[in-house]
């Protein structure tokens, strides 16, 4: 009996030590990527190629989701606000919730599942098929040549995607509230412009999405690089990328929000 207790305690300890090791590896890998980023900026065409795969190909899902999220917000906001006779505030509601929260967060979640998983799978498969080792054999540093351009492409794309998400969302809210339901157009825009502050709301939203971009792509490239070089390992790493990114985004969002928006100004 005591032996079973000891082994189960050992199992817990093993897991904890393992995850701490992994965290340390991730941090060292992140520092390595930053150190070896010079190549990506000297040969910027590498980054541009990755921005195409990471950013441009994510556009459709980001734009369509943004439009629908905005439309739903407009509809639900109108539904509730009209009970208090303040349906003109629907513009404020849509714009503030998109610019502050939903734009950065939803765009980052979609980005993690659309682009993050692709980055992990690609790097993981390159490792499994020993392409990375082959590069190292040819004295081409895989971190500088493969990982860093993908990392910077994600970091550059994320704020742009989040801004596009917010704009399409505001347009969706406008479409539902003004065009379909018939809220007054002037009060829709003016109440929005009165409430949304450039420095306080929009810049903070952009800062948020920059943080999310770094987090998601760092997780994606690390999971890909760290994946066991088997088919199973790559699939597990892809899943972990999406799950870890989603949790990291939501957790980080709370931390950032509590620093940025304290209710009083």
């Amino acid at each position, binding site marked *: 009996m005591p032996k079973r207790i000891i082994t189960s305690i050992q199992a817990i300890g093993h897991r904890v030590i393992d995850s701490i090791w992994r965290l340390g590896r991730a941090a060292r890998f992140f520092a390595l990527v930053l150190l070896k980023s010079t190549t990506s900026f000297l040969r910027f065409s590498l980054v*541009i190629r990755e*921005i195409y795969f990471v950013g441009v190909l994510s*556009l459709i899902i980001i734009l369509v989701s943004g439009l629908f999220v905005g439309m739903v917000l407009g509809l639900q906001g109108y539904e509730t606000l009209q009970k208090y006779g303040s349906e003109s505030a629907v513009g404020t509601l849509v714009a503030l919730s998109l610019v502050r929260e939903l734009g950065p967060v939803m765009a980052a979640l979609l980005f993690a599942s659309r682009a993050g998983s692709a980055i992990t799978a690609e790097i993981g498969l390159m490792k499994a098929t020993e392409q990375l080792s082959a590069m190292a054999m040819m004295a081409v540093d895989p971190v500088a040549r493969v990982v860093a351009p993908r990392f910077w492409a994600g970091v550059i794309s994320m*704020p742009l995607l989040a801004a596009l998400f*917010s704009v399409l969302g505001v347009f969706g809210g406008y479409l539902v509230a003004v065009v379909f339901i018939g809220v007054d157009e002037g009060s829709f825009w003016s109440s929005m412009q*009165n409430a*949304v*502050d450039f420095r306080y709301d929009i810049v903070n939203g952009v800062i948020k999405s920059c943080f999310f971009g770094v987090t998601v792509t760092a997780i994606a490239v690390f999971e890909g690089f760290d994946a066991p070089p088997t088919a199973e390992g790559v699939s597990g790493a892809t899943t972990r990328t999406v799950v870890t990114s989603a949790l990291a985004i939501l957790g980080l969002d709370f931390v950032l929000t509590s620093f940025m928006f304290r209710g009083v100004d």
Partner: protein
Amino acid sequence: MQRTIIDFWVGLFVIAGIGALLILGLKVGNLTSYNTGESYTLTGNFENIGGLKIKAPVKSAGVVVGRVTDIQFSLETYDALVTMAINAHYRFPKDTFASILTSGLLGEQYIGLSPGGDEEMLAEGDKIMKTNSAMVLEEMIGRFLFDKAAED
């Protein structure tokens, strides 16, 4: 895929993203209303500002003419010293009345200016002498109950 096509799409993507930021700033946000032209500052002492906040609008006849820039507690008079930046287009007479009003029943509070009939105009740094405090619900209820009790 060809290099030029990728470059084209990425360029388009970056332009669209930056354009989206601009739209957010100009159409959704208040970047347009920032520093539109010159402004001059006025101050006023209020006995009680209620829930007035910095950046609250200053309105006259319902038109936004300026913003509250600073709220301080004055140790000399033991009341609130409110500083506001008024758009230089709008000039107000010396005997303008400033009161803290609420938009709607539950709306935000703002400063309402009702112009008087003086020939002289308020200038940079002047103090508005006639002010009216914010309406505080508790005080009003208290006064109402007191009046009721006095009637009986």
